[in-house]
């Protein structure tokens, strides 16, 4: 059996960046990916871009995006809960990553239709994250990296300040290997609904998991049990409001619904519960995950009318549709009388809508209504009426391994000599809450490369 210098646990972007970097430095690398080949790549399969600092036009990116502006954007969404030292490291190294990615087969495309606001800050992968993952696996094969799919790592034996052994199951057999160094890049624990429920409470049973069903946090739990330093609030997860008909796992990008600002949203009793027009959707979709989670049965219902049906990105499944609100209520399983009463109250509170503007905070608000709708408040009057159900969709969890600027893990006794972490599993070291589009891939790429470099240097 091959004696590997480095075992990389996980098979997504961070794992591949680490593995390629280490192999290019001469290390013998094994990737242990828990998913079968069609599902390889973790949540990277579902990504679409990479947020990248740049001092001038770079690849598909226009103008410039400075370190300071990038950091300011990050601090805004995390409300300051950011490790600024590590965040600056990720941001400042992101610029050199883009050509590095291109050299390894990643191709970029112009900002997708409907995402023009990102053309300066985010480089979109042609074909999306799975195409990126495919390119990296091809590159990994060319570098002689071995990849084992459906290899379920169950235990890393920590002895003092070293990982002595890696145990994994493959094809029903338990294997024990003793690589010189280990890199953990196996994501968060959001696909383990029991763990999520322990952290969040019973409502988590009704959450949908937007990404891979394979991020069950097995290695994370194993390391935390052995006293490896952790970071991040276990009760925190990034949760957004998505189409209630989405699959339990792996629905990805397509399950998003952008129609809330043009709607009223009611709970299963037909009652509104929050200002749908508080801000533009990209700034609000993340709080709606929590709002829906707080409603009975963790479900919400969006109601719009014919005026608004073309104002948002198309949905993955067609909306429910009826000529009357009563008919729509029946289709959606909502109490018709309550819904009609709620809509009537809302309509009566709407005022002058002549300054309605779908992409700006237009101040078209309700008057004397609780809760108010402070923008885009137009009466729901024009048939046909359309409806969607909304559920809480979890993107990732924040609890993870604490790393330093070398991506190295530690215990209370100090550094673990041969253990590094990259990607979602250590993203909590940088992000305390909130999320900035494309930053996950930045963390994965930058820290994957650092981990690969450090582990290879140690192994050599």
């Amino acid at each position, binding site marked *: 059996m091959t004696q590997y210098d480095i075992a990389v646990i996980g098979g997504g972007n961070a794992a591949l960046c680490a593995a390629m970097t280490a192999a290019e430095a001469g290390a013998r690398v094994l990737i242990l990916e828990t998913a079968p080949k*069609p*599902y390889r790549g973790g949540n990277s*399969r*579902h990504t*679409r871009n990479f947020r990248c600092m740049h001092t001038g036009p770079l690849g598909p990116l226009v103008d410039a995006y400075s370190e300071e502006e990038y950091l300011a954007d990050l601090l805004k969404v995390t409300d300051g809960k950011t490790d600024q030292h590590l965040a600056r490291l990720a941001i400042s190294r992101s610029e050199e990553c883009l050509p590095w990615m291109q050299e390894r087969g990643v*191709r970029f*495309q*112009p900002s*997708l*239709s*409907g995402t023009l606001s990102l053309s300066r800050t985010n480089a*979109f*992968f*042609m*074909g*999306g*994250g*799975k*195409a990126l993952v*495919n390119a990296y696996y*091809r590159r990994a094969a060319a570098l002689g990296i071995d990849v084992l799919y459906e290899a379920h790592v169950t235990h890393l034996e920590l002895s003092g300040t070293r990982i002595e052994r890696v145990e994994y199951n493959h094809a029903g057999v338990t294997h024990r290997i003793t690589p010189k160094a280990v890199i953990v890049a196996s994501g968060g624990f959001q696909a383990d609904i029991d763990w999520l429920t322990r952290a969040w409470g019973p409502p988590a049973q009704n959450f949908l998991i937007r990404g891979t069903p394979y991020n069950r946090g097995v290695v994370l739990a194993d390391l935390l049990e052995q006293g490896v330093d952790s970071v991040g609030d276990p009760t925190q997860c990034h949760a957004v409001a998505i189409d209630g008909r989405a*699959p339990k796992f*792996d629905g*990805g*990008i*397509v*399950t*998003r619904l952008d129609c809330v600002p043009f709607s009223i949203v009611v709970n299963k009793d037909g009652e509104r519960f929050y200002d749908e027009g508080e801000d533009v959707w990209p700034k609000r979709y993340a709080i709606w995950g929590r709002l829906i989670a707080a409603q009975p049965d963790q479900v919400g219902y969006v109601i719009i009318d014919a005026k608004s049906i*073309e104002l948002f*990105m*198309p*949905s*993955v*499944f*067609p909306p429910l549709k009826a000529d009357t609100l009563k008919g729509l209520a029946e289709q959606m399983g909502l109490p018709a009388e309550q819904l009609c009463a709620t809509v009537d109250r809302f309509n009566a509170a709407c005022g002058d809508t002549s300054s309605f503007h779908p992409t700006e905070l237009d101040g078209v608000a309700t008057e004397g209504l609780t809760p108010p709708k402070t923008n885009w408040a137009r009466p729901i009057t024009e048939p046909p009426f359309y409806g969607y159900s909304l559920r809480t969709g979890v993107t990732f969890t924040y609890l993870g391994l604490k790393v330093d600027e070398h991506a190295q893990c530690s215990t209370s006794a100090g550094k673990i000599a041969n253990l590094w972490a990259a990607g979602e599993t250590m993203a909590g070291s940088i992000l305390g809450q909130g999320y900035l589009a494309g930053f996950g891939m930045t963390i994965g790429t930058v820290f994957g490369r650092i981990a690969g470099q450090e582990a290879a240097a140690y192994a050599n």
Partner: protein
Amino acid sequence: MQTELLQEARRQAEICNACRYCEGYCSVFPALHSARAFSDGDLTQLANLCHNCRGCYYACQFTAPHEFDLNLPKVLAEIRRDSWESFAWPQPLARRFHTHGGMIALALVVGLALIFWAIRALGSAGGDGFYAVLSHNAMVAIFLPAFLLPLLSIGIGLRRYWRTVGGTRIRIRHVKAALSKAARMTDLAAGHGEGCNFEDEDRFTHARRHMHQAIMYGFLLCFAATSAGTILHYVFDIPAPYPLWSLPKLFGVSGGVLLTLGCGGMVMMKRRSDQGLGDVSAWSGEIAFILLLGFVGLSGLVLYALGATGLMPVLLALHLGAVLTFFLLTPFTKMAHGFYRLAALIRDAQRD
């Protein structure tokens, strides 16, 4: 057209339209993303824009075993063929060949028999070269209708297509845009210009694009050779046979070589590709068609090489029989795709 196929394509297109990750690959996605709902005509147009490069399939996070089970290259290939069959005229021939490679082989036998019969029955009135086997007038009498009737048939089919996809008045710039894409086959190169995914899963190569270009340019050169011969014959009164350094021969030999190699290479590549990402039921029809087209090229080359030997009459009959079969089957085989693709690209240029 088959409603269940269209319904399946609609389901998939709606998922694609909510994702948009593949926007940069080819002409299909910008067209798809410009719509909100997909009529049968929209789906027919998208299907004929698709070149089955498979880039979107290998990039897709929603392919089987995912429950969304997306396979856009396959469903569009099925709709594409269904559209050619639905628009074809006359209808009794529409569904006989695309999915029946054996029928194409049988048609070749019939075509060969017709030529042998013509040689025996009509023979020659003492011309030179090939005309010593079959007179020029007899050839014209056979091939003029065999050329014009399929053209008429394709024209009727294209008209039906144009109506279905809601095409408007065609302007020069639409045609220029379409020809520019077709000439370079940009839709087989992906947005990054590195080719398509075909013979080795998600690896991008230009192999298929180059094979396809060899076939297309080979065919066009052969067609140019015949046209040049016709002009020399009627306009300049210079009848065949022509020397090597003449337009008909220069076009014909280079075209024949390209056509033969391109078809041979294409069949080998198709055998290595994943059949499940294409129109499985048209597999035999596609292979038989490519072999027929390759045989047209090869038999022409052999005829040229051995034209001065005693084998010439047999070789001539084989070549003419293959050409006759190829012409007559044009509206009912994969050959139709060239016309529909160009129409789809013209229609797509009208979107801007």
